[in-house]
């Protein structure tokens, strides 16, 4: 039987880098992880050719290429396919990084990098893109369960709906579970760039969210306030390892 992970590892990965050694190293590391289908392109032309010929599932692009740059190559690739792209480059300036991500790349890694981190990111992007979802869509918080797919809290067979904003905040906190998320990051996520003055609104939403997910909203056990800084979603991992 083909497991979900096997399905993932059968994906074809294209690495575009003019340095042969980098390609060999990445290929070796991916091979060890079970990714047997890696393709190499050392310039833009070759990359486009391979993308047209093969069903590539993920592209890893360098930016400095002999016949062009990775940003342009990315745009050319987008005309053909919506395949996810990771930039892997020696260009470490934050402007380059922002440029790459603004174009719509799925990730941006700067050389030198740890192989392990690279592999983890590759797997994460593949899982996300191809919906090979091992992560839970539900979250248990003490006596109730949050269902992220239906945006509901389930308590004693009763379904409590979560509003869109509350859902966004909870999702953001969940993505960073057991870590502090600042007011600013939450407001930015929920209301966008001009989030000034939303602190009080944020407090109101958090209070309502607590009423839905906490047993005792005035003594929260999961949605904790970190005074002056932000909020933290505390989840006991043992109970939630479904």
């Amino acid at each position, binding site marked *: 039987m083909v497991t979900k992970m096997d399905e993932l590892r059968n994906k074809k990965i294209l690495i575009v880098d003019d*340095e042969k*050694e*980098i390609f060999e*190293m*990445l290929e*070796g*590391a991916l091979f*060890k992880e079970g990714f047997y289908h890696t393709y190499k392109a050392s310039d833009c032309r070759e990359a486009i050719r391979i993308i047209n010929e093969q069903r590539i599932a993920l592209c890893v692009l360098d930016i400095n290429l002999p016949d062009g740059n990775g940003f342009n190559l990315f745009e050319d690739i987008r005309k053909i396919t919506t395949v996810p792209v990771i930039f892997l480059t*020696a*260009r*470490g*300036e*934050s*402007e380059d990084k922002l440029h790459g991500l603004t174009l719509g790349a799925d990730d941006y890694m*700067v*050389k*030198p*990098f*740890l*192989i*392990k981190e690279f592999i983890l990111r590759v797997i994460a992007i593949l899982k996300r893109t191809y919906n090979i979802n091992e992560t839970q869509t539900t979250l248990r918080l003490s006596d109730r369960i949050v269902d992220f797919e239906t945006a509901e809290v389930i308590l004693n067979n009763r379904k409590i709906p979560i509003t869109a904003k509350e859902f966004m905040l909870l999702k953001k906190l969940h993505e*960073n579970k057991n*870590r*502090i*998320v*600042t*007011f*600013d*990051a939450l407001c930015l996520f929920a209301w966008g760039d001009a989030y*000034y003055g939303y*602190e009080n609104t944020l407090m109101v939403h958090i209070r309502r969210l607590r009423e839905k997910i906490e047993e005792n909203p005035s003594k929260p056990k999961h949605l904790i306030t*970190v*005074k*002056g*800084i*932000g909020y933290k979603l505390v989840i006991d991992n043992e109970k939630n390892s479904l």
Partner: protein
Amino acid sequence: MKKTVYKIFISFILIAVTIAMILLAINFLAFAILGSDPNNLYTESPRIILDNASEILIKTKTGFALTDEIILPNDTWFILISEAGEVVWDLNKPDDVPLHYSINDIAVMTRWYLNDYPVYVRTTDYGLLVLGYPKDSMAKYSIEYSNDWFRSLPKNILALLFFNICLATVLACTFGIRLYKRLKIVTSGIQFLKMESPVHLKEKGIFREIAKSINETSNTIERKNQLIAQKDHARQNWIAGISHDIRTPLSMIMGYAEEMEENIELSGNNRNKAGIIKNQSLKVKKLLEDLNLISSLAYDMQPSKKKSIKICAILRNVISDLLNSGISDIFEIELDLQYEKAVIPGDEALMERAFFNLIHNSIMHNKDGCSIKITEGKANGVIFIEIADNGKGVADEVLLHLSEIPKSTHGLGLPMAYKIVTVHGGSFSARSENGFYIRIEFPLSG
């Protein structure tokens, strides 16, 4: 500088007026001295000659005679006119001098001339004694003043003096205002020079040479700054190039070391060594990331990206990152944000780095734990941020060299934060006092 020009202008007018007054006084004295004829004073004056002559003039049987020799200036002559208007005696009388005179003739002669001969008269017991001088040897003027004139003289002199002072001031101002304007242009030029902004003064007028020098100096400064900027730019590019070129080989060193560290075919000893290579490579990676930043800070480069930095947001972010990274419980961080709207223009990533360095510094240097209090607020037109811990403090040596980027990467955190704050127009003060205390101030903008 503007004040200086003003002072120069005022002292110029004062000097001009003073000079005018001194000249006026000197001229007045000189006129008084020259006004009296020294010939009359020091040689025999007509009056003295007449006095002498009248004393020695006697009446003889035949007429009149001088009892003694009298020394007369050349070509002078005497006549004696009787009550009846007849010349009764004469000495060296020219032929064109008449012998008979009416009262009108006498009146005219006493004041003016007798047949163009300048004459002086004196009354004697025998009649009118007339002393005649050669034609064109003397000029006679009569001056008359009313008593009123004499009475109002002191007042008039004062008024005249005052008028003179006023006139001198007005003239000095009129002529000085042009000087003032020129001077102002020149001084503003010097001001611009000081700020190293380009100066192009019009090269004319009395300050032409100075204006020319200022323009040339400005050009030189501009040229030099351009050269320096070019050099800085080249160096920056070089550093960027180097760090770029190192990244790819380092990737390979790191990648394979990482692989070897986990390769169970290798001995434990060798895997350890591979681990060390990996960790050292990570350090080089960190250095590479800082290299551009350090080199730009070392030369006081202005932040290239100018956006609004929300001070409170980045402080919260720095602290949440530190807390999320799992720092030990022995550290206690207290955050007190009093002015939520604090915004300064600049590079957010740089500023975040500065605050991270400062707070991280307290954690790094107090292994036994400490509490760190961060206060932010607004006071006296500045945004201030205070970071205070109750730890061991920092050596004086470090505080002394806060503004210098060290040659090595040790102890880079504080100087880097210092530079970042100062290139953003902030002030940075630090002292060791019951721990380490830092105060940063930014001018309130907008």
